């Protein structure tokens, strides 16, 4: 009886998890009630409305001990997104669950994080700061402020870096912090400081040691996309929440791509998809289909002609032997009898005259879009013994063939001559 009950409980438990899985995305909002109560109309009000209409929200204080990022198996994440509002304290109580290692694991399990920096009196609690540093983003600490005496307003000319995320600046006055970033290739800044901006401790003069950023080395908004396409953004001020694109991007609502299929066929036998064996100088056709997530559904991802976004194929063995732009094929469906939700690209090329194990590599890394990486290893073999030209097909060989025949005929004539011609018939003579 108890066992049955237990099974039922288990069943219920899994159903709930399942329901959570396919249901509305879960989002955790961590905030400091002393700074941001999140109940009156702050500058983030539009943002909160957006959150409310799109996600199942969990609000929590930084000191909330109940919060855990993972389910009990430690392999799946409880939330899809985390939003970190500024805090007044440097430390938190829930170090067991909210530490830098768990945050990193959260990203590795494909969770997204939006970090909101604050004005001079706020900062990020330590675990979050260490974790951001690990990604390569170093926000200025507490009591630091971004200042620009010459360009008091943000402008697209001075500040905006076009990375396919933000097209136009909607914020003019900026009250917040700035960050330094490392050379990590997965980081791409969105809004930078102007040449004349700097980040300094409030009330102290500029100093080589203590000033956090000088000029364009500081960034006001930074995006980060991990190899598994988990997204992180750090924005230096709550003002930047007016740039809707930034948080839409973080929550995977914008510029999210999916490789629906990638396949190659041999021109001689197109019915066989993804053959593992090619022959040198065969014609190969490589096709991919990419969809983009827009307004809650997958739609074809079509690129303008000659755009930088055009996907490329490398056919490589240690080094690329071919590096080709894919051509547009048209809208297709990723499923049988489905909607036209995918845009297909293709390229037709000759396999190099070199045998070995080659990789069809689609390494699509464009700032602002999801990374796409697909590798398919095939064997390119040499010509078999019966695939060469026959000797008589090569005009150069005719000379040799003719001389061979000539020798054979001459030898035959010689033998005939030697045996039968010109010999005295001894038998006759004897008689």
């Amino acid at each position, binding site marked *: 009886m108890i066992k049955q009950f237990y099974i039922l409980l288990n069943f219920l438990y899994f159903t709930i998890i399942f329901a959570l899985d396919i249901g509305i995305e879960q989002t955790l909002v961590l905030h400091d009630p002393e700074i941001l109560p999140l109940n009156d109309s702050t500058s983030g009000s539009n943002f909160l409305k957006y959150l409310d209409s799109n996600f199942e929200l969990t609000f929590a204080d930084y000191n909330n001990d109940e919060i855990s990022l993972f389910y009990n198996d430690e392999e799946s994440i409880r939330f899809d997104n985390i939003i970190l509002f500024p805090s007044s304290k*440097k*430390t938190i109580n829930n*170090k067991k669950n909210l*530490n*830098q*290692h768990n945050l*990193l694991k959260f*990203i*590795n399990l494909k969770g997204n994080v939006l970090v909101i920096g604050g004005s001079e009196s706020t900062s990020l609690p*330590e*675990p979050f*700061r*260490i974790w951001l*540093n*690990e*990604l*390569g983003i*170093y926000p200025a*600490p507490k009591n630091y402020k971004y200042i620009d005496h010459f360009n008091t307003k943000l402008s697209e000319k001075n500040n905006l870096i076009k990375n396919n995320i933000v097209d136009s600046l909607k914020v003019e006055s900026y009250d917040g912090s700035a960050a*330094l*970033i*490392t*050379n*990590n*290739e*997965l*980081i791409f800044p969105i809004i930078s400081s102007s040449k004349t901006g700097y980040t300094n401790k409030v009330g102290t003069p500029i100093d080589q*040691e*203590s*000033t*956090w950023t000088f000029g364009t*080395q500081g960034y006001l908004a930074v995006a*980060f996309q*991990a*190899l*598994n396409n*988990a997204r992180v953004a750090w924005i230096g001020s709550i003002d930047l929440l007016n740039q809707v694109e930034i948080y839409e991007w973080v929550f995977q609502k914008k510029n999210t791509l999916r490789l629906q299929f990638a396949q190659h066929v041999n021109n001689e036998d197109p019915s066989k998809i993804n053959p593992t064996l090619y022959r040198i100088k065969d014609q190969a056709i490589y096709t991919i289909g990419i969809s983009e997530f827009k307004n809650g559904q997958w739609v074809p991802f079509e690129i303008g002609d000659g755009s930088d976004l055009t996907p490329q194929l490398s056919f490589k*063995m*240690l080094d690329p032997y071919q590096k080709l732009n894919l051509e547009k094929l048209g809208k297709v469906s990723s499923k049988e009898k489905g909607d036209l939700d995918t845009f297909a690209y293709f390229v037709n090329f000759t396999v190099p005259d070199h*045998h*070995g*194990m*080659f*990789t069809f590599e689609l390494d699509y890394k464009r700032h602002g879009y999801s990374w796409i990486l697909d590798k398919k*290893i095939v*064997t390119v*073999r*040499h010509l*078999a*013994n*019966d695939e060469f030209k026959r000797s008589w097909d090569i005009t150069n060989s005719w000379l040799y063939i003719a001389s061979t025949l000539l020798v054979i005929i001459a030898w035959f004539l010689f033998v005939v001559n030697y045996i039968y011609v010109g010999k005295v018939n001894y038998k006759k003579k004897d008689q």
Partner: protein
Amino acid sequence: MSNVNQLTIYGVDIQLIRTLLKIIIFISIAGAAISSRLFSVIRFEAIIHEFDPWFNFRATKYLVTHSYYEFLNWFDDRTWYPLGRVTGGTLYPGLMVTSGAIWHILKNYFKLPVDIRNICVLLAPAFSGLTAIFTYFLTKEMKDSSAGLLAAIFMGIAPGYISRSVAGSYDNEAIAITLLMATFYFWIKSMKIGSVFYATITALCYFYMVSAWGGYVFITNLIPLHVFVLLLMGRYNPKLYTAYTTWYALGTLASMQIPFVGFLPIRSNDHMAALGVFGLLQLVAFGDYVKSKVPNKQFKSFLIVSVVFVFGSGIAALFGLTAMGWIAPWTGRFYSLWDTNYAKIHIPIIASVSEHQPTAWPAFFFDTSMLIWLFPAGIYLCFQDLKDEHVFVIIYSVLCSYFAGVMVRLMLTLTPVICVSGAIALSKLFDVYLNIKDAFHGDNISISKVISKLTVLLSFGFYLFYFVLHCTWVTSNAYSSPSVVLASRNPDGSQNLIDDYREAYYWLRMNTPEDAKVMAWWDYGYQIGGMADRTTLVDNNTWNNTHIATVGKAMASPENVSYEILKKHDVDYVLVIFGGLLGYSGDDINKFLWMVRIAEGIWPDEIKERDFFTDRGEYKMDKDASETMKNSLMYKLCYWRFSELFGGRDGVDRVRNQQIPINAVPELNVVEEAFTSENWIVRIYKVKDLDNVGRDLYDATKFENKKSGKRNRIVKRPKIDLRE
């Protein structure tokens, strides 16, 4: 004398008895030859030995599961990743085709579906019986059938030959020595009687030999040399002309049918001697004809002028064509035959193979026992007789004595001629001393004569007996280890099998994805391919020095450099052999200097052999080890967590007798331990993926290991490189 043929014993014709006896002797010899090669099967199991046989075995399996043409056109995508190997065109197919044919015949005609592995294991012993028979025929041509029988039994049990033909040693040499003897026998036969038929058979045997072993070049040069020497001795005759031209024309055409040989017979220097002698023989034949037509005096001047002219233009053509690249120059292996230091300086990859080292002199006694001192006596007897065929034995013995001194593995080709000439000497001795008729039939029976005969006979009887003992002992103790399985003794004397290799390879086969790429030093390539069935980067077919050097560089470099190489080559696992725990000296640390040297040959700026030694020039692994050594991937993979086994004290490397300090444990960043075998001989590491958040793996490991400890209140501005 005609009544000799009618001699009967108990009404049976004596010739018949002779034949019967001979057959019984042959069967016994074959039995002895085969059974003495079965030690390893009885002690261990029917397993393929060592390294190369694993490739041959794998290729044979491919042959019997695919068609012959698929085998011929086989492009192997599981070795030399990502280059691949045109295996069908770069192997000698004779061995595989032979066992494949046996397999098919047994299956289709005798309805005996034998496992191909058993055929492969037992092929070498079976062919050793044939070798003995061909040695009999060859020696019979030299002296008589009693010498032949002696040579046959010597050949059957001489350790020099057994070393390459025990059960499980499924290598090209297993059938090649048989074919060598067959070719030589038929050559002597055809040369003696000038028969086109026998010369054709010689050519066929030669073709089979070419298809089976790269050592066929030995025949390609020995037969022309024999002819050349005979010409110099003024022994030209039409028989020689018939035999040689037939053999050369047919043999060369046939040998060109083997894809791996292809056009070599007309384009490589190794084969030019045969061509040159062929041309010379035509001229001599023509000269002979002229001589019979013109007076002697004129002929002499004609001869001198033409010989000088022909010789000069021949040499000039050879040099010219070689310089123009039409004829391939001598290969490195060939140079290392003349200058034993050549390989060490120019081609470390050849020098790194232990069987390419010069032979130590005790090896001659070890491998041939008493035959080594009978050998010169036999040659002396050949000189006394000095018929055409004896010249052959003399040339063979001179050449091979030299080669065997230069390279250990060429003991193999010396052994047959030692057996032949030893048998000639011994049979001559027996002819004289076993002739007891004289002692009793004489007018007065001389006691001293009888005693001297008895003494000699008894002592040689003892030598023969001792020879058998020695051969059996050597075979049993030195040449019957599969080297895949190691045997050792427990303190109580019982046998302890160390089966780490197979344990690890089986682990790879069972626990890694089928397309996983395994990087290991090339010695283990064939075994990984054969036993673990995983893709390797390099293997014992050392055709691409650069690729091997790449692996050497990956092993000898610091982790971050290695990681780039590993990623570029899609490596999933790294395998190293470590003998430090057990005292197994054939491990990767002892081979490490070769890896360094080979890598240095390609990247002299990045890898320097000197850096791997201590300041005092010692090769050390302990606390004195150089920084480069300690940072190399190989060192880290071998000694990772090694000291932990010793309960807080320093680890002891039993191969090098050095202390591995407990407080300087190597750290691993780019790989993680996946498997270590029971006795730590094989260690397998998995290559980590790229870091998901784009850090280098050093930082990632550091971060992983640093649990949130002391709080750092003051946030300092980081030192960051300028953003690119």
